[in-house]
């Protein structure tokens, strides 16, 4: 696993650096960038590569010193590699480090350059992943009373490298550039922690319930899940709780909390609870197929574990989001509601598709033999997905409907709502085209092979199910979209404000469109380059602009909110 991770990182790092370099060189006013960017690229790529080489070499030598029993028969290839990496690599690394220090002392701008932040981020995260794998190698056997000194030594090496890079990020890099490291570290910690906790719950369920009825013949349990949870918890606490949680809710922070913390957690909970409920329903009402209940429910503890952990993570991140969101409904709150509605709609739509599949199966002649694959099971699968996804979708969609009725102007003008509806149509169109093609191919093939019979319909049941579900989802949302558009001109007619608005802050096409719609004036946006500006709060900007009576207005978005200044156009 370490080799795979290392391979991916070593392969990806130069590509990421190259992309960043090309982006920088191709930016407007790139003429100001001289050969220093190219030099920095090779300097930090060299530093990164040599760091990995020396770390691998030193780890290999130290492991030989502590491993028990010691290596008697020489593995000369490994030893030669470790010696070369250490003896030859160390002076080269020292040389590049000294060169970097001299450049940083001579020109403070070196530290503010993105290349330095990218290097520290990539190297720090590489060391973090390696240290986590080694710490897992220490804790996992320790749970069962064994000690793994080789993993402990490797952890000290990689943990030390991580600590140095994390400290350098905190001391030498502007706060805005260091936040990427905190975001990715928080994500790694969260995923590891949740997978570990779900595995612990799954193991507990299997041991306490399933294996009491059917004891394992041979069991090779270890502390892997516990170790995963411990390692994940340490990383998550350091990155998220101690450093990243309190950060300003900028776009990166919201990207972490909303799609990952809230969205992915809900997906995990929906999938886990659907699988668990389906297993129970099939056992009670359906056709469970061959085997006694311990066999049937063998995978259920893992599904329950995923559902519990997903629900807990979903609840936690909703609280975090609620604490940082303003009292008024803005696009962040809307993004949350529409994301939740979209995820649960996918589950409900899948349930509708499976229901159509079950209907087609019910219309076809019964199978001569069937075990665990009956129409009843398909119906129970559809019921499961509809019962899990349907009420959840209605809960969030009802809230959206309520807000739309309360403040129709700001809701239907929101880019989040329009994006949600258009994404649904886009996905629906793609799904419709693909399913029509697949179903047509099956029908034509069946006709050429002797006629469209029961077998052909059985093959076509899944694409037809998806087609019907897509049509239902698109049909309903098309009505909603049409009614939004019908209401839009009335909303626009009620609005007024300056004839010219200059927005200065973060790039955001949505806020430009919303202000243009509100004022029906000339709206321009200039991007601030001094500090990363926080995202615009569209409602706030629209409200401020709409009540202003000056013919021309500049609105500046900063960390303290927005500031409106009357201006005169030249």
């Amino acid at each position, binding site marked *: 696993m370490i080799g795979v991770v290392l391979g991916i990182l070593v392969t990806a790092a130069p590509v990421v650096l190259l992309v960043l370099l090309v982006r920088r060189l191709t930016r407007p006013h790139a003429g100001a960038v001289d050969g220093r960017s190219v030099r920095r690229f090779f300097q930090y790529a060299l530093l990164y590569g040599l760091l990995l080489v020396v770390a691998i070499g030193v780890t290999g030598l130290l492991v030989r010193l502590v491993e028990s029993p010691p290596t008697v028969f020489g593995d000369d290839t490994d030893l030669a590699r470790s010696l070369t990496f250490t003896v030859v690599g160390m002076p080269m690394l020292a040389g590049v480090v000294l060169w970097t220090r001299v450049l940083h002392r001579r020109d403070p701008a070196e530290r503010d350059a993105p290349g330095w932040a990218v290097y520290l981020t990539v190297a720090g995260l590489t060391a973090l992943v390696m240290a986590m794998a080694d710490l897992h190698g220490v804790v996992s056997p320790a749970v069962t009373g064994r000690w793994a000194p080789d993993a402990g030594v490797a952890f000290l090496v990689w943990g030390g490298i991580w600590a140095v890079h994390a400290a350098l990020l905190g001391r030498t890099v502007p706060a805005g550039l260091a936040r990427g490291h905190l975001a990715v570290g928080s994500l790694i910690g969260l995923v590891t922690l949740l997978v570990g906790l779900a595995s612990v719950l799954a193991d507990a369920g299997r041991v306490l319930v399933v294996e009491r009825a059917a004891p394992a013949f041979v069991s090779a349990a270890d502390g892997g899940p516990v170790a995963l949870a411990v390692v994940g918890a340490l990383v998550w606490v350091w990155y998220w709780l101690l450093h990243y949680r309190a950060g300003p809710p900028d776009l990166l922070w919201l990207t972490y909390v909303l799609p990952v913390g809230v969205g992915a957690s809900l997906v995990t909970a929906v999938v886990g609870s659907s699988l668990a409920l389906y297993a129970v329903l099939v056992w009670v009402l359906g056709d469970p197929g061959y085997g006694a209940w311990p066999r049937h429910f063998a995978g259920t503890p893992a599904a329950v574990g995923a559902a519990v952990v997903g629900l807990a993570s979903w609840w936690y991140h909703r609280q975090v989001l609620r604490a940082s969101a303003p009292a008024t409904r803005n696009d962040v709150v809307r993004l949350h509601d529409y994301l939740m509605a979209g995820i649960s709609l996918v589950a409900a739509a899948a349930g509708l598709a*499976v229901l159509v599949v079950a209907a087609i199966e019910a219309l076809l002649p*019964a199978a001569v033999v069937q075990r665990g694959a009956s129409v009843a099971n398909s119906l129970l699968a559809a019921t499961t997905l509809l019962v899990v996804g349907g009420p959840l979708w209605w809960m969030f969609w009802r809230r959206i409907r309520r807000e739309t009725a309360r403040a129709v102007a700001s809701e239907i003008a929101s880019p989040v709502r329009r994006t949600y509806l258009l994404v649904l149509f886009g996905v629906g169109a793609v799904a419709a085209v693909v399913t029509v093609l697949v179903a047509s191919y099956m029908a034509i093939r069946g006709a050429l092979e002797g006629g469209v019979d029961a077998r052909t319909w059985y093959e076509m049941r899944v694409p037809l199910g998806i087609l019907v579900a897509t049509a239902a989802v698109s049909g309903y949302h098309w009505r909603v979209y049409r009614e939004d558009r019908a209401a839009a001109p009335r909303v626009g007619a009620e609005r007024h404000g300056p004839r010219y608005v200059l927005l200065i802050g973060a790039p955001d096409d949505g806020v430009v469109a919303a202000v243009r719609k509100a004022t029906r004036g000339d709206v321009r946006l200039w991007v601030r380059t001094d500090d990363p500006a926080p995202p615009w709060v569209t409602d706030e900007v629209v409200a401020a602009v709409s009540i202003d009576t000056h013919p021309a207005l500049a609105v500046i978005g900063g960390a303290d909110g927005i500031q409106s200044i009357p201006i005169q156009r030249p």
Partner: protein
Amino acid sequence: MTRTADRVLVGIVVAVVLLGGVIAWVASRRTPEVFAPGTPEAVVQEFLGAALDRDDEKVLAMLSDESCTLEDLARAWVPESARIVLVDSTVRESSATVRIEVTEAGDLLGGGWSHEEVVGLTRDGATWLVRPSSWPYYDCGGW
């Protein structure tokens, strides 16, 4: 919001509930096709039912080749859930072939893997016996 959209939504919900009810009613009333006892189709139906139920002794009693043992049957991989439909059958003087389509399925989203198989039979007096080279045992006893 929106009376038309509400009507569409109510229509979808009512359709879903009605469809679910009709499927449940149909599913509760349908039974597998019953073939005349002693025909190759009936023998294959009984044989495959025993195979999926892991009733190895019954399977062994229905095989034509005595070299196949209970250990061979226990070693064979048999799907835990499957839907099998009859494609066609050919009956000759002393042998018969029954073509079936097997869909190994059972997941939440209704997917499945279908493959066509041929079950061979030989006549032994008044009864039909299954050749051990048939699915799901293939070359049973021939290793």
